[in-house]
């Protein structure tokens, strides 16, 4: 059941990652002013959208390692396009990938419903937040920390997992994914 990831899937993941890199640069354009205006709190609202690269890769390919590869590819593309976070973004994408992989591995790479994807999103969010804690000095926020975590969790579920499932299903309906595991597992 657990097959190794094929060249076809890697190339498709890379293409999606490149596209996501562009989309993320677009999100950055919203994220940065929002963060400057409202502080980390406002940034947390659309935070979940950054998880899509790892989640979508996993959702489409459904093999061990897919989330990690998709996430890392997106990170590298984002870095090459001039992300302000530098090497931090590679670390973040690594952690996101690991989070998603861990959550899906708990389900034995069999369950890909909204609940499982949400678990992946939240786990990835927690990992990245631990990194943020050190990098952006979250300890300085003091009491702000609790609402930030709540908003981030909701955002990860709605914008991360929710959007992934919607996009994934829409993409499956276009019929380009023939030969992928998502196509075979119809009806969930």
């Amino acid at each position, binding site marked *: 059941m657990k097959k190794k990831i094929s060249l076809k899937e890697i190339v498709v993941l890379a293409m999606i990652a490149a596209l996501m890199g562009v989309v993320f640069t677009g999100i950055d354009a919203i994220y940065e002013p929002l963060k400057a205006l409202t502080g980390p709190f406002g940034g947390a609202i659309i935070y979940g959208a950054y998880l899509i690269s790892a989640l979508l890769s996993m959702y489409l390919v459904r093999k061990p390692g897919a989330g990690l590869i998709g996430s890392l590819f997106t990170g590298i*593309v984002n870095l090459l396009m001039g992300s302000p976070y530098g090497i931090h973004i590679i670390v973040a994408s690594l952690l996101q990938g690991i989070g998603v992989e861990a959550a899906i591995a708990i389900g034995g790479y069999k369950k890909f419903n909204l609940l499982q994807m949400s678990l992946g999103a939240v786990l990835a969010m927690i990992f990245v937040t631990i990194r943020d804690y050190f990098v952006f000095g979250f300890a300085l926020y003091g009491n702000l920390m609790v609402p930030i975590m709540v908003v981030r969790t909701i955002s990860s579920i709605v914008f991360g997992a929710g959007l992934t499932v919607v996009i994934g299903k829409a993409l499956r309906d276009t019929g380009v994914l023939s030969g992928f595991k998502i196509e075979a597992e119809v009806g969930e």
Partner: protein
Amino acid sequence: MRQNKYFIDKMNPLLKIFILLIITIISSIDFYPFLSSVLVISGLIIGSIFSSLSFREIMTSIKAFIIMSIGFMGIILITRYISKQNLELLRILGLGFRIILISVYTTIFVKTTDPTELVMVFIKYFKMPAKYGYPLLTAYRFLPTFKDEMEIIKHAHQVRGIKESKNPVIAVWNSKRYIIPMLATAVRKGVRISIAMETRAFGKYNDRTYYRQLDLNKQEVTTSLVYSLYIFMLIVLLHSNNLTNFTLFFKD
């Protein structure tokens, strides 16, 4: 890119990653603004002299991050003021400089590094299998194509009488009209490329050779080491004057 006359532009990306890594680690653990501000200034000077970027070019690309870091500091200060905690002005300033520091060095790194060479570094030094490296390069090459496709889709919408909303919320909601077709064409292209790669026996043989050779030349290594030494001396100097605050966990 190799025949470029500027030193930083032709440097091996591995060494640039090495320096970027040092900067990243320092900026993640130092809570005072002194070290990072000195490093920002030296980065700006060295970047504008030894790379193809001019001082003005670097400043334009980091302008947004300077504004962002000011906003960032302002918000934290206001929240701390409202909740009546210690203001910790110095440390918050350090936090702001952290963002600027990373963005300066990343800008210089990204704008002077050839993507192909970066992927070659991943393959050669970090032992990333070519099976993963080349698809990444292929996909990166498609970025301009994606832009063209976006225009085509936009025109297709226009021809069919769809008007773009000025409301940003609706515009974001409507972006699914672009994202789904873009993703579909990206997947379709990916499948075709993978077939093309497989028919050319990509990844079939273990003894593949590379057209581009990366080498570490002595001059570049020495320069990187000198710069790392400079950073180290700076740390020692500032630390002995109690101007650094290295800590992972911040306490009030």
